[in-house]
Every structure is written in C-alpha cells, then in structure tokens.
C-alpha cells in the first residue's frame, strides 16, 4: 500500500497552487490535511502526477469574523477549529460536529475546508455547511474569484460540482444569532467509524416562541447531504412544545430525500431512513433546548 510516483510541490501562494493545478490538466491534487487523499493514493484507488501542499500558503490559516458570518481558511485544522474560541462562540454547531469527525488523531491533521472538498458520504462538515448556509470562496486559474454556496456544491447525488482546477481558499459559515438553538446528532457503528447518518439543525424562535426559521440538514442517508426544505417549512410558525411535531418533522425530513437512501457494507438504505428519523428528532430536541433560554451562552 505505497503510493505510485508523483511530484510534491509546496505551493507558495494560493494563486501558485491554482496555476500548477491548472497546468497539470486534471492529474494534480490539492493536499491539505491529506487524511483522505494519502490513504487513497496508498491504495492506488486514485492517481496523481502532482500533489500540491497548500498548508504553507499565507492567509489560508485565518479564522475571520465578518458580517453575520465567520470565515475559515483552507489551512485551518479540524482540531484547532474544534477548540477555537471564535468558532465555539459563533459557530457552535460546527464546533460540536467537529467532535464527531473521525477521531482526535485524524482531526489533528485534517482541515475543515478539506472535508468540504472531499465530500465523503456521511461526512459531518458538509452537512453543517448546508445548515449554516455556507459559502465557499474559490480561486480559479488566472486569479478569478468566485463564490459558490454549499447548496450548489452538493447539488448532485454524489461528489461536488466544484469547477476543476479550482481551490477553495476559505469558507464562510453563518454565525449564530441571538437565541438561536442548534443541534447535531449522529449514528455510527462505533466511535471512530463513519457516520451512518447524521443531522445538523438550527432553530430561531420569535418573541412568541414560534419557529421563525429552521434549518435541517441530513448527511449519510444519501451520498451527498441535503436540506429538508419541506420539513423546515412545515415547522415555520409552530411552537415546539409538542414532541409529535418534532417527530413528524423528522419523518418528513427523512422522506423528502432527493436521492435513494444509501446501502453499503455498514447499513442498508432502509436502516438509514429509519435512523435518520431518530437522528433528526434528537438534533431538533437539542436545538429546541438550546433556544429556550435566549440569553444563555452556548454550551
């Protein structure tokens, strides 16, 4: 399980990386944490002539607050973001979800943005990116910049719709607003293994404690994550006092999946559909509990 030959280049800047990637005409790969890329190269299930390490590019390591959002650079490691005070404060959903990614010994190297690019089925960060209306900031050959919403990136059943020879330089996630509740829930075979199914959700209540906005994103049930828009709309205007409402919402969210439920070695599609209901239910309950005390800081 040794990789085939490739050339390794430490990109000096993001532009440098994109130019080299473009010149490699599809045979180049971006290396950030490498926690997915390196094992795949070792198994020789993918190939590369050129591996571009972006971890030393200046200003890819920044975590910057913005207008209602926090932007995380491509070189930010998962373990650092898990513990970062700005992320914990403003993106508590992401901080919690990161604790479910693989295991600490992998998060020490993997990056948040790298997760988005890999789009592994059931991966936690893409699910959160949908729940937090994430915008990916792309750099294209020739220096062109482009924003792409996570929604558009994961619009197909599998993989990303990112343009080839592009580099995600950073991703902006919507910051938590006052009194917003959030919840993350996951079902796995055991800790350290993949998510069979997971859910990221946010809730904002109005003064009458009715749902003003809801985001329910489900991962693992289908190869790519999706937003359960119909379930979200059904919750608007409701109070969440009745558990049956949460349960109905969860059922709807699982049922409205745009693609078939995924069957693999670890679980059947039927199992995932059912477990998704439980996962969404638990995430919504957590979100409800967190938004019932509007002035309390997040856990």
């Amino acid at each position: 399980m040794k990789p085939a030959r490739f050339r390794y280049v430490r990109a000096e800047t993001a532009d440098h990386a994109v130019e080299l990637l473009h010149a490699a005409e599809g045979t180049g790969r971006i290396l950030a944490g490498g926690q997915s890329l390196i094992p795949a190269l070792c198994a020789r299930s993918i190939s590369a002539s050129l591996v571009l390490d972006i971890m030393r590019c200046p200003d890819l390591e920044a975590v910057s607050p913005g207008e209602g959002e926090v932007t995380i650079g491509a070189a930010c490691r998962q373990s650092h973001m898990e513990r970062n005070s700005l992320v914990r404060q403003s993106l508590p959903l992401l901080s919690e979800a990161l604790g479910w990614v693989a295991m600490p010994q992998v998060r020490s190297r993997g990056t948040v943005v790298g997760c988005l690019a890999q789009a592994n089925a059931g991966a936690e960060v893409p699910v959160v990116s949908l729940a937090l209306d994430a915008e990916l900031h792309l750099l294209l050959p020739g220096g062109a910049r482009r924003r792409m919403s996570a929604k558009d990136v994961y619009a197909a059943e599998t993989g990303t719709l990112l343009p080839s020879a592009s580099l995600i330089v950073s991703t902006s996630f919507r910051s938590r607003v006052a009194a917003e509740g959030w919840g993350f829930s996951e079902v796995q075979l055991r800790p350290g293994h993949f998510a069979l199914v997971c859910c990221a959700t946010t809730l904002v209540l109005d003064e009458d404690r009715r749902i003003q906005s809801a985001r329910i994103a489900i991962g693992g049930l289908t190869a790519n994550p999706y937003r359960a828009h119909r379930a979200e709309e059904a919750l608007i205007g409701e109070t969440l006092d009745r558990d049956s409402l949460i349960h109905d919402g969860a059922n709807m969210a699982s049922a409205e999946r745009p693609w078939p439920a995924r069957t693999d070695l670890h679980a059947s599609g039927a199992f995932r559909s059912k477990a998704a209901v439980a996962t969404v239910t638990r995430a919504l309950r957590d979100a409800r509990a967190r938004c019932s005390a509007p002035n309390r800081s997040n856990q």
Partner: protein
Amino acid sequence: MTEDLPPYLRRKRSRRYVGEGVLRAEDECLLRGGGGFLGDLPAPDTAEICIVRSLEPHAVVRAIRTSRALENPGVLAILTADDLDLAEDVLPCVDMIPGTLDVRQHVMARDRVRYVGQAVAVVVAVDRYLAEDAAALVEIDYEKLPPVIDHMAAIDPGGTLLYPELGTNVVFQSTQQDGNAGFAPGDGDLVIRRRFEFHRQTGVPMETRGVMARHVNGGARLHVMSPTQLPQVLRRVLASALGMSLDRVRVTAPRIGGGFGCKEMVYPEEILVPAVARKLQRTVRWIEDRREHFACSAQAREETVDAEAVVASDGTFLGLRLTGWANIGAAFGYVPNTPITAMAAMVRGPYRVPNFDARMFSVVTNKAPLNVLRGAGAPQAALVMERLLDEAAQRLAIDRAEIRRRNLIQPNELPLDRGRTDFADAGRIVYDEGDYPRCLEAALIRAEYEQFESERREAAERGKLRGLGISMYVEITAVGPFETARITLQPDGTILLYSSIMPIGQGSETTQRQLVAEELGITMEEIAIRQGDTDEVPDGVGTFASRGAAVGGGVGRMAARQLVETILNDLAAELACDRAALAWEAGGVTLPDGFIPMAEIPFRLATLRQTAQPEKIEARYRLEVLRPSYSYAAHIAVLEIDPETGRMEIPRYTVAHDCGKIVNPLLVEGQIVGGVVQGIGAVLRERLVYNAGGDLQTRAMMDYVLPGASDVPADFRLWHMETPTSLNPFGMRGVGEGGTIGAHAAIANAVADALRDYDVTVDGSGPFTPTWIMEALNRPLRFPGETTYKPTE
C-alpha cells in the same frame, strides 16, 4: 528446617509463583517500543517483495507478461511458479482423515486461480515502493470461469467444480455418533428443527504476516524468519519444499503481534520467499499489507448446520442430529476441517444429550482458504446447542436456567466418554473432571439472573429492549500429541529454558518462568526463556488449541524437575556420596554438611572436577499428552438495544470459568476479557463479504469493523473455579480461547431474548448489526396485541 536457613533462603522457599498475578518482564521492551517483531528486525541489503495477486475468483491463467514490469526502475526479478525450483510445492494440511480429497494448496498458482488474492507472480525490487510500481505493470490474461461462492450452491451436483478431476466440491466428510444414533423424532415430546448460518470472519491480528529469508554460511544454510505459531513445522515443510536437508534450514519466529489461529498455518509466502532468496542468492523480505491480509490470510467460521433436537416434556434433550457444511475456501489451510469436526465433537457441551448423530462436510468455494480462529469451531458449536436450549425452554415454558440444570452432566458422571471423533487427533472425546452445575450457579448468581425481569421492565420504561443470554461450553484444550522442552543451568548459575511455545500475546514467557521458578524454588529473575529458533528447539508441536500454559508450561516444569535429578546425580557422583543424602530445597542442594544455592552449583562442580571453566547442565523432557483436557465456563450476557438507532450495548457480562489450576490470574483474566471482546466483535459487526461475482468487498480496516474501546462491557464480572485435571501433571487446562467460545452463544441468546416479543428467529452468528436489529424490529409481534410472551402447547 526453615528456621535454620539464612533469611534469603527462607524468603526463596516461601515464595510461591503459581497462582500469583506476576507482572510480565517481557512488557518492558514492548512498552519501550522494542519487541523485535519481524518488521522491526534490521534488514540491510534486503530486497523487498510485492506479490502479484489474482483479481479473479476463478479463472484459467492463459498468459503472464512481465516485460513491461521488468523495465521498471529498481526491479531485480519477477518470478512465477515454475521459477521457484521447488521439489515439493504442496502446503501441509494435518486434518485430512482417510477418504479426504486432496485439495491442499500449492505455493503459487500455475494454470488456474481459485480465489481473489491468490499469488500469481512475485516481484522483487530494491524497496516496496518500486516493487509495487512494477507489480502494477504485470499483465495477466485470465479466462474467467463461473465463481462458486455459496457453499450450499457448491454442493449441487450440476454446478461448477473447482477441481473438475475430483468430480465434486465436497472434499471432506466426518461422522460422529454417540448412544443410539438412530433415535427417532417420536422418541420425545418436542422436535426442533433449525438451520444455523455462521458468517465468514477473519482474525485480524494487529501485526500482519511477513517472511524474511537469507543465506548464511556462504549459502550453506537458509535462515527464514516468520511470525509463525509453528516454527518447527515450517522448517520441516521448507526442507521438503526446497529439497534441502533439515540441518540446512533454520527457522526463527520473532515475537508475534497476535495470532488467534491466523498464524497457525504454513502459507504460500513462507515457501516462496525463501525460494526467491535461494534463486537470487540474496536476502529478501515480504511484509504483508493490510489489504493483502484481508484477501489472503486465513479466513474462518463460515458454515451451515442443520440441527434436529428431540426433547422430552421436562426439557431434557434426548437426541441431537446434525448435518453441517463448512465453506473452506479454495484449498486446504493447515487445519481447515477442524472447525466442522469441532462442531460434531463439542456441540453438546456440558449437556448430556445421550443420543447423537452428526455428519459434517467441508466444501470448496472460490474464497480464500479457511483455517481455525480462536475457538476453532467451538463458538459455532456452543451457539447451536445454546439456541436450541433457549428455544426448547420457550416452547415448553421452562425457565432458561432450569432447562440447563436438567441437562447438565453431573460431576459424578465424569470422566465421560462422548464418543469417537475425527477432531484434533483426540481419538475419543472424554471429558475429564469438572463441576458444570456449580459453574452455572456461580454465573447465574453473579449475573443477578433472578432480578433480570425487573431490569428488563425498567429498561422498557426507558424505551430500550434489554435481553439476557446464557451460554455454557466445554472446550478441548491442551492437545497433544506431545511437547518438548530443554532447560539448562548455565555456567553463570542462571536458568535458561528453551520452549516450543511462541509468545503471541498470551504471556507464555511469564507463565512458563513462573512454573519453573516454583519448581526450583528460585526467583523468576534467575530464569531466562528462549523460543522460536529451530536450531535451539528442533522438535515442537506449536502454539494453538490453548496448550501453551498447560502443555508448554507443564513440560517446562517437568524439564526443571528432570534438571534437579541430573544436578543431584552429578553432585552425588562428584562428592562420592549417597544420592539419598542430597535433596533439592529452597533453590539449592541441601547436603549433609551444608547447602549450595543453585547459582553456585556450576562453579562448585567445576571445582570438584578440577575443570577450568564451569559448564552448563542440561535436561530435556518430552511430555506425552495422552488426551486433551476440557475447560468449561458459563457466560451470561446482558445487552440493551436502542430501537431507534439499532445500537446495541452490553452493559453487563459475567463469566464463571474453570481452567484447572491457574498459574497467573492476571493473564488468565486478560485472555478471557480479550476473547469475549473478540466474540462481541464477531457477532455484532465483523463480516467478510464476497459479492456474487466473487469479489472481496471487505478489504480494509474500515470495511471490516473491529470492536473498539467503547465495546467492552462496562461491568465485567469474572469468577474462577479451579478443578484440577488429572490429565496434566500440574492440574492445568487451557484458557486462551474460551472467552470467544462463550460470547458468540451468550450474545446470540441475549439478542433473541431482547427481541422475544417479536416474531424473530436468531439462528446463527448474525452479525447483529444495526441493520439486522432494525429489520428484526420490523417483524410482527409474536403475539399481536401483547408484549409479554406466553408459552404455547
């Protein structure tokens, strides 16, 4: 008299090692990162091998083209079967009874491949990276043949044959009977017929396999290193395969990073790597990577068993009839027919079941070869019996513990002859001493069996399904036919023990040293132990079947006893005194006029003989093992299912066990807990998956999901009984495999119990994944409208 002895001798005399949780001295180098595993051994000027393996499950090999690969940088050679110059290229199988068809494996495929992962060509290069590059360029033309994957389809007369010349895929047959084998269903009040399915598993030791081979003495000898549980066997096979005399071949087994039966085999690589070394006249090495391991290291446990049990209305089992088929893969491993004969030999466990008839078959398919895996067929056997007991209990409305009590063999019935068997050279299965009822009661009490129903209700209130499963088993251990040991009192006054038992994690070095220290009345620090080198230990049977402590430790202790005799005889001769005037006590020799501590004996003898240097004194012992001994245990698993997620937890696990005299309770407990967790993994998640086309789908650690730290039961209750066995000079039996044997059955029963309200059949080893659980929960209720089971008939 102890009072007359100086303090240091009194201390030595009173020190007892047997029964103590002595810490392992071997831990120091392991904890510091040493340990000397094969991959850690210095390998200067060593070429690396990458094996080109079949991607086809069943095909004729039309052509192998290596020219492109040979041009790759760093490639030294590419070899196929004909290039190895083997005198003998068949690998050993030691459980072929008369009438068995010969499907022993060849070292490398020639004209036909029969499983994905089979070795087809060998690339030798300056390092593994370059070897893999070249291997990717080797071109093989396959003419595909229909793959045979399902053993029950393989027994169909009209189907594809793996070995057309044999005319069948059924290559082995064994019968075991007891009492009136022709008993009829009508003899009892209840007949249960069930088909049990056991899924394919693999051992996954943390250390993969590997082989290194080098010439020494200017090419006169071949030194082969492999982490094998059978170094002496490998040496003999190598000598035959390479057409070399035995004295020209040396095998050393480095410390083994986990065996579990996976390294109780002679593998193709263990022959082809030395053959390559000889051909190229250089040192070569092959380190298995994990993907290879899943494809071609020994697989295990897959079988189908049809059972018919005839039961009286009071729950006593009158008769059991079995037909079983093992899916042994494409060719024989070392002991491939053992799991299925173990089913026949051990299925009745500690239960009387006087009338018995079993017909067992081994079936070849296009999967990697099967071998034994911890428990060697006994996990499957115990599961069959224990599921039948629970089902009978349910249908006859008898309490589960009570039905077992009514069937258990009583102590005064032991020893008990269970019949002739083909299993493990045992000849006959004759249970030795034990107290099965006491063991069961101990487990029931410690597991709080009587309170379980209220526990179950409380869990139901929390929305969880709790179940309890009981299992008991009897395990064949400490098998023979013999074992040897050599022990020397070194010139420096310390002891050196040469053992045939390989350390695979079970702490054999410590256990054996404890026994010798106890025998000689010395401290353990004065004893060193060596193993795994055929130059030092040329005869030996090997490490398997839970024989390390009982047989290996037993023979070591007997060798120490023999050493004492030799020393006393030598001293008596040199001192010209009556042998009866000398005695061995307190770690030395008591003379009429004094005492010589062991450490001084070589010097003293040298003085008496007027030789310049002290010399070593040696003793050997060969322990003939007439019959194996039988450990037993009762396991009780309490598990809890979350119906929303299908997740299963095992909050409480209880074991009451008897392995005879315990040498080191710390190590014994480690074996039991480790074995139980392996059993948990086996029935909860582990499963080797081949698709219908014969492709292996579980190829990596994330595919084949091993138990993790969160899987060990939080409340693990362990209780020992020690009924010594008269079959071992020191009353010891084996313990290494029992945890896994009991766990399969206990958890299967607990799952069935948790789902007792549902119309669900638990008829095998699962695995009981969340998907399996969810599907079970979708089944209708057993009694619609009711959630409490009521008996029928």
